[in-house]
């Protein structure tokens, strides 16, 4: 039985590294997209508008004759980088709030948790839509809207984990040795609760990308000249019947990127799953 468990742990780890490599490759391709683009993504040429996919234009062209392959590459960069940045900020903000709230307790805790209740009372995407609508369109406002709806999840997770850890003897020992609250929180509590939060964040990247694209699709995200996957699809809506590739190309790009991050997130969860290993994060990843 024990033998079998080790083998499956090895498999889990291999899977994780395969997906990690895949994601890194994808990320590199997106990051250096300006070098890979065969055409200028914003160059218009109405003479070749709405051409189906061909050897010259891999994904075809849109109604302004712009090369869709180049636009998808650049658009993926916009969507992915925004989503990554947004998830990082949301997770950091939520985690810090949750840790402080859980560690301090008292009035501060009640206040912060009420605030998160309030943010959770509005269905996420809907609230984001309303905020983005009020602040006016633009990728920045769409991201801000998603930040406001996203942080409570991390705050609650970090809080419950901090609460579970708060009375552990090693923390008392640290406090007796003279460690400051900040040091306790960031050097001792954070490493212990990081795995769960990391998995949540990894699985959130895909969802965030889809939500951002959704907001752009409704005209609440990136402004027209910027290539962004959601707004590209919104652009192609009226041409669904005659030139479906205008929608299929960015749609498939979203699908591929989101799949990649979801697979990575799942694999990461399996690697870090506390139920299958008693070892802490960090040591477990070492070969």
């Amino acid at each position, binding site marked *: 039985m024990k033998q079998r468990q080790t083998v499956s742990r090895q498999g889990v780890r291999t899977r994780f590294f395969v997906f990690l490599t895949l994601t890194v490759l994808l990320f590199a391709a997106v990051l250096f997209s300006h070098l890979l683009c065969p055409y200028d993504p914003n160059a218009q040429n109405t003479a070749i508008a709405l051409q189906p996919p061909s050897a010259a234009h891999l994904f075809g062209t849109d109604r302004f004759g712009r090369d869709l392959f180049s636009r998808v590459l650049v658009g993926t960069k916009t969507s992915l980088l925004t989503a990554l940045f947004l998830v990082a900020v949301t997770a950091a903000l939520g985690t810090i709030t949750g840790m402080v709230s859980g560690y301090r307790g008292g009035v501060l805790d009640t206040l912060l948790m009420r605030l998160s209740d309030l943010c959770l009372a509005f*269905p996420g995407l809907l609230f984001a839509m309303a905020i983005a609508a009020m602040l006016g369109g633009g990728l920045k406002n769409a991201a801000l809207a998603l930040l406001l709806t996203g942080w409570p999840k991390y705050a609650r997770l970090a809080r419950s984990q901090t609460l579970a850890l708060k009375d552990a003897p090693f923390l008392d020992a640290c406090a007796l040795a003279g460690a400051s609250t900040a040091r306790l929180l960031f050097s001792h509590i954070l490493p212990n609760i990081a795995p769960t939060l990391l998995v949540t964040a990894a699985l959130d990247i895909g969802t965030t990308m889809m939500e951002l694209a959704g907001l752009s699709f409704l005209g609440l995200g990136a402004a027209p000249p910027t290539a962004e996957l959601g707004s590209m699809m919104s652009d192609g809506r009226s041409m669904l019947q005659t030139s479906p590739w205008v929608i299929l190309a960015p749609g498939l790009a979203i699908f591929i990127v989101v799949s990649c991050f979801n697979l990575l997130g799942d694999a990461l969860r399996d690697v870090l799953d506390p139920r299958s290993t008693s070892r802490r994060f960090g040591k477990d990843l070492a070969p």
Partner: protein
Amino acid sequence: MARYLFKRLLELLPTLLLITLLSFALMRLAGSDAVLQKMENTGTVLSAEELAHARAVLGLDQPFFVQYGRWLFDLLHGDLGTSYVSGKEVFTTLWDKLPATLTLAGVSLGMTILLSVPLGIVAAVYQNRLPDRIIRLFTFLGNSLPNFFVALLLLLLFAIKLRLFPVITIERNAQSVFLPSLTLCIAMSSKYTRQVRTVVLEELGKEYVLAATARGVRFSTTLCKSVLRAVLVQLFTLMTLSAGSLLGGTAIVESIFLWDGMGKLAADAIQMRDIPIVQAYVLWMAILYVLLHLAADLCYGLLDPRIRLGGKTA
């Protein structure tokens, strides 16, 4: 029971009050008010004095909380103001669209349950075997496709290529409700199937299942009579939680299929910056969401005698 309900409703009051405050603040965030909007819509140009006068008439020169108080007072009397665009009352506008959205939400929720509960159970029972792998592949696909892309793909396939369903769904009938509900159902059931699978797997790992098998009870009997009954509460909770994402998801799907419901109304209102409509929509949805959670909490007691009311129900 009545006392418990009263207590819960009382606890809801601050939350509801904060929701209204936030909805009201949203309107102020917009940086524009009714007077400016009306001016833009009618195309007239007013002098600064005329603007100030119009604001004074509408009470827009009062402090924030005074305005909020008046707005709340009107709200409690069912007056949500009038739309900037159509000039009609917001309340009746939304109320007229409610049945369409409820139909859509209801049908897709029904489809989701019919699809994902059996699939989740099958996946759990056949863990890591072929049926489980196939089901997991599909839930993975559903989770990685944005719902507007699914909607467009379905339109392309069923409405344009196969011509089985109408592209635009102005009339409400069984045929027109199918594609929009299917879109919502695909996204929801991918999540829900996974959750059902996890919950059932956890229950199957408990010792009583092993004990029943050891005593020769048929597996299907254990599954139907014990396991399913035990996981009912958790499934119910998960479902109420997914109702929230359903409410948010309807806006995009309704506007793609031109389904004449509240979601499309809100999406259109956002485009035209018709703030009273957006505000009222957000408010309604938030209140509905909170009430759904309350209903779920109340139902726990009925489904699971261990968490009967009064005691510490976390």
